[in-house]
């Protein structure tokens, strides 16, 4: 029963990892940009939520109503003002610029909020749990997992059913030709980053409620996000959810053997999958 419990908890944790990864996957899919600052942007979202909830006395979950649009705006501005200038044939400049951005973000957060670990206080819901047969599962983890499923489904729908999604896919296929179809690349990239950071805002707030965070917490989240994307297969959103779940389950099972093995077990699972299936478990069939 303990093992079953670990698997259920790991699956729910996977929802959070899928939220870390979804924005990363979206950006890479649309513009082949590897966003090294993604983890720090997750942490930035948590701090933005902290500021809103402290200054306005809001529950951090309610603060999402403000944090999501704020981060979307930050994303659009970031892309239009900085990242678009680095986009071209060479993938190295955006990589270096987002790495620099990561360093800057960490230090700005350090100046503004100090290195003390912070936490988002969501109240009674944090400890609430429901009985699931013989198991007790937390309401928050279930909520995070459901959110992840909804976000992935919404992104999937957006990609395949809306004009914006088709613009994203056309750009991803043939950027130069897409521009000849009247597609404004700078704007479309801006919208992609806005969407990515809107999802990141959800991830950041859920992270802040789940654990303590500090300005240096981004790196690990970036790694978890990358691992979930790679395990699931690049360009496959449902695969990213599966990747998050596999990573989460590996971690909780590792922790079950010995609490010190939690992170290591996740990395080992990632490495095994990378060795056996270099393109991930569910690569996009037509890629």
């Amino acid at each position: 029963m303990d093992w079953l419990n670990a698997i259920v908890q790991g699956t729910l944790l996977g929802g959070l990892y899928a939220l870390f990864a979804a924005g990363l996957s979206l950006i890479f899919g649309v513009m082949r940009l590897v966003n090294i600052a993604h983890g720090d942007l997750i942490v930035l979202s948590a701090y933005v939520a902290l500021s809103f909830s402290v200054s306005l006395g809001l529950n951090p979950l309610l603060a999402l109503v403000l944090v999501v649009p704020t981060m979307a705006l930050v994303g659009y501005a970031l892309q239009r003002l900085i990242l678009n200038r680095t986009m071209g044939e060479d993938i190295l400049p955006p990589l270096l610029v987002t790495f620099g951005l990561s360093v800057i973000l960490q230090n700005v957060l350090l100046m503004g909020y100090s290195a003390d670990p912070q936490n988002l206080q969501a109240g009674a819901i944090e400890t609430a749990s429901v009985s699931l047969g013989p198991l007790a599962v937390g309401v928050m983890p279930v909520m995070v997992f459901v959110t992840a499923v909804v976000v992935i489904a919404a992104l999937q729908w957006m990609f395949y059913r809306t004009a914006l999604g088709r613009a994203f896919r056309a750009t991803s296929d043939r950027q130069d030709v897409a521009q000849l179809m009247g597609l404004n690349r700078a704007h479309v990239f801006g919208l992609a980053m806005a969407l990515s950071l809107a999802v990141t805002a959800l991830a950041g707030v859920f992270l802040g409620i789940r654990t303590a965070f500090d300005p240096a917490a981004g790196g690990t989240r970036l790694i978890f996000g990358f691992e979930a994307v790679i395990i699931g297969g690049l360009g496959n959103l449902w695969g990213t959810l599966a990747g998050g779940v596999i990573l989460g389950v590996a971690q909780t099972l590792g922790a079950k053997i010995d609490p010190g093995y939690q992170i290591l077990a996740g990395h080992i699972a990632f490495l095994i999958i990378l060795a056996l299936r270099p393109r991930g478990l569910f690569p996009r069939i037509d890629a």
Partner: protein
Amino acid sequence: MSAILELQGVKKAFGAVVVADDQSWSLQPGEALGVLGPNGAGKTSMFNLVTGTLSTDAGTIRLDGQDITGWSAAKRCRAGIARSFQVPQPFAHMTVFENAYVAATQGAGLSGRAAEAHCLDVLDRTGLVAKSNVQAGGLTLLERKRLELSRALCAKPRVILLDEIAGGLTENECQSLIQTIRDVHATGVSIVWIEHVVHALLAVVSRLMVIDFGRKIAEGEPQAIMQSREVKEIYLGIEADA
């Protein structure tokens, strides 16, 4: 009548290779202009300059009297210039309908039902409507060429640039494509058409222009141009319908 598209003294060179050498020509509204020239003469580069894929070194390009020389490719498309590629470049991972839809929403600025209706109308005219839900990567050559034309038309162009759209087709395929292009022309769209399949070109255009080494070397009535020394020199030893 003022020109819909006008090039004045357009120059472009890549190092020592001159692809456009002081090119000046214009296209009247509703006109169909054919472009001939040997391989490497700068015909496709001329299209790249007009659509904004390449920037000019000198000269001006005007659309309906407005200077568009500094405009981005996307802005030129929205203003009414669309093209097809010699080697079809579909969005291979999207369906035929979605390919058309991108041009209709981004280029023509349509949305919702209006965009869908426009796409279906164009696909019907280009004979691709039955293939709407097929992935563009799986189309035959003729279908890909038709998709090139469909995408360009979905952007609601005032000027359409066709780059060797009849090349590589069988005689029957070519005839049906000519009919489609004639229908498009009849709706009032101005056409510039680069083509080696001369009989296809002559079935549509009312004026011919010959380009070599990036320079316009002849221009005029199709029959007169076909008999001219310049064309005979260029196509010497090459069958007109090769």
